[in-house]
């Protein structure tokens, strides 16, 4: 098995010195004699120098090989340069007669026990192997781990190496910081969006609080002491009711925005619907609503129980409120998805004119119709709950025909 001992990048001439020293060191670990160590290290430095000169940078990995018949240490030098043109000719040069540069490869080959060079337009790879061991050395995993540890723990060979290590650490830290910065930016963006939502919310709610208050004030100022005007009392009653509803809505919203207090359970849809229908028995009976359920494909989902119930309750109550002249019919289906369950809810109510209100329907305290009584928070709450753990909701509707909601519910772990 070929085991990596250490690696370093070759980015400048000092690295050649480092690579040479490492080669000496590893050869020494392997129990190779000093002249052989020098041969190996010199071959390494020849190729590293070439790599630096012609490809400007590269890297070197030292391996120990204990798999083949004969154990070996190997230095693999890679670069991403343009490759060597006329490699065959270069390899034929005779150092005794050839004058000039470009002998490094030949020298390296002479000094290696096994030499392999591959060069193409994508770069050059050179493998220098040393197989001549002067004494029996076991290159077991444990021993090589020992080398690694030794190399890791030893004090830096030079101030330059120290700088190199520190530099690498700095680069790592910079990278981490950059990631954190990106995360912070993302959070910031979400915060800004949330702030904007809050503003709209505040605006909507203050409007909802102010309108009944104004009529209350007006009615009170019109009232004579001791007098009991039925008309005015009626106005006052209605205003107080509206205020009460708004405040209840607010409390509901605060409640769902605090999911920590909720319990995660295996929610059985069939059982849940029974409870919901129980709660709405009066309105369901009075409207003669027909509810069709099909939970065969996905019967349960690990979800916040309160949320699941609240979502269905709100949907049913909307359907009841915004029903058309036809007898109300509701269909609820489930099917499994990768992350949880897709729940499709369809009714035959008055529908929503999405061409005009599509962006507003999930906003708090927005009422899109004057039909019936509502606070305009049902859909807002549903969306908030579904999106709390990454789920989503889509709506399609035809005015006068009905509305379909498709919920992609994500299961809670």
């Amino acid at each position, binding site marked *: 098995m070929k085991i990596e001992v250490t690696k370093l990048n070759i980015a400048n001439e000092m690295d*050649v010195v480092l690579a040479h020293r490492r080669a000496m060191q590893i050869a020494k670990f392997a129990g190779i004699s000093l*002249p052989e160590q020098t041969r190996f290290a*010199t071959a390494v430095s020849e190729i590293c120098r070439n790599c630096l000169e012609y490809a400007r940078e590269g890297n070197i990995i030292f391996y120990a090989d204990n798999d083949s018949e004969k154990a070996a240490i190997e230095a693999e030098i890679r670069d991403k340069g343009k490759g060597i043109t006329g490699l065959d000719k270069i390899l034929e040069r005779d*150092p005794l007669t050839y004058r000039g540069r470009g002998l490094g490869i030949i020298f390296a080959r*002479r*000094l290696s026990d096994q030499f392999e060079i591959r060069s193409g337009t994508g770069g050059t790879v050179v493998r220098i192997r040393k197989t001549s061991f002067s004494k029996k050395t076991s290159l077991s995993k444990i021993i090589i781990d020992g080398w690694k540890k030794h190399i890791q723990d030893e004090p830096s060979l030079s101030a330059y190496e120290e700088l190199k290590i520190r530099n690498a650490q700095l680069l790592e830290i910079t990278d981490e910081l950059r990631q954190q910065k990106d995360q912070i930016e993302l959070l910031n963006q979400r915060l800004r969006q949330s702030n904007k939502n809050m503003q709209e919310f505040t605006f909507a709610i203050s409007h909802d609080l102010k309108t009944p208050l104004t009529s209350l004030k007006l009615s009170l100022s019109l009232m004579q002491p001791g007098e009991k005007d039925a008309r005015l009392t009626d106005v006052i009653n209605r205003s107080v009711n509206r205020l009460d509803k708004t405040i209840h809505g607010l409390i509901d919203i605060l409640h769902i925005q605090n999911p920590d207090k909720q319990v995660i359970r295996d929610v059985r849809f069939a059982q849940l619907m029974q409870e919901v229908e129980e709660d709405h028995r009066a309105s369901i009976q009075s409207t003669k609503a027909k509810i069709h359920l099909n939970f065969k494909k996905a019967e349960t989902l690990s979800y916040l129980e309160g949320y699941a119930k609240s979502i269905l309750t709100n949907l049913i109550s909307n359907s009841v409120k915004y029903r058309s002249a036809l007898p109300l019919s509701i269909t609820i289906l489930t099917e499994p998805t990768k992350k949880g369950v897709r729940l499709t809810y369809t009714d035959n109510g008055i529908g929503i004119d999405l061409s005009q209100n599509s962006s507003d329907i999930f906003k708090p305290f927005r009422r899109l119709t004057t039909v019936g009584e509502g606070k305009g928070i049902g859909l807002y709450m549903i969306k908030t709950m579904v999106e709390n753990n990454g789920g989503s909701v889509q709506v399609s509707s035809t005015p006068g025909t009905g509305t379909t909601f498709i919920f992609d519910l994500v299961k809670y772990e």
Partner: protein
Amino acid sequence: MEKIPILKMGDFLLVTVQIDLYDRLALNLEADLVNMINKHQAKGVLIDISAVNIVDSFMGRILSNIAQMSKILDALTVVVGMQPAVAITLIELGLPMTGVRTALNVEKGMELLKRNRILDSEEEETTSTDEDDSAE
């Protein structure tokens, strides 16, 4: 920037390389040496490489260059203190170290330079006598 010190000893220059040479350092040494030879009219350069581990074709070329440049400036280069393992590698390489003379250690190297100097001056004397003769 690191520099390799060049010491003047009489007619000779002494260079002790204490660290592994990397390219820029070696090229600077080349330039510095040539300047010093010129400045002090040195007759010999002694380079001690006993602390140098890396002697590859690059180093060989640098040493060879220094020797040839010095020769042109009429100075002899002697490299001393080569480690045995390095010597073996150099032979394996078949690296031509043109013009480089070697000695075992600094002491022997100095002797070599001095002997060469004496030979030179004798030659000079004979030449100058010849010239005197011809003048007459």
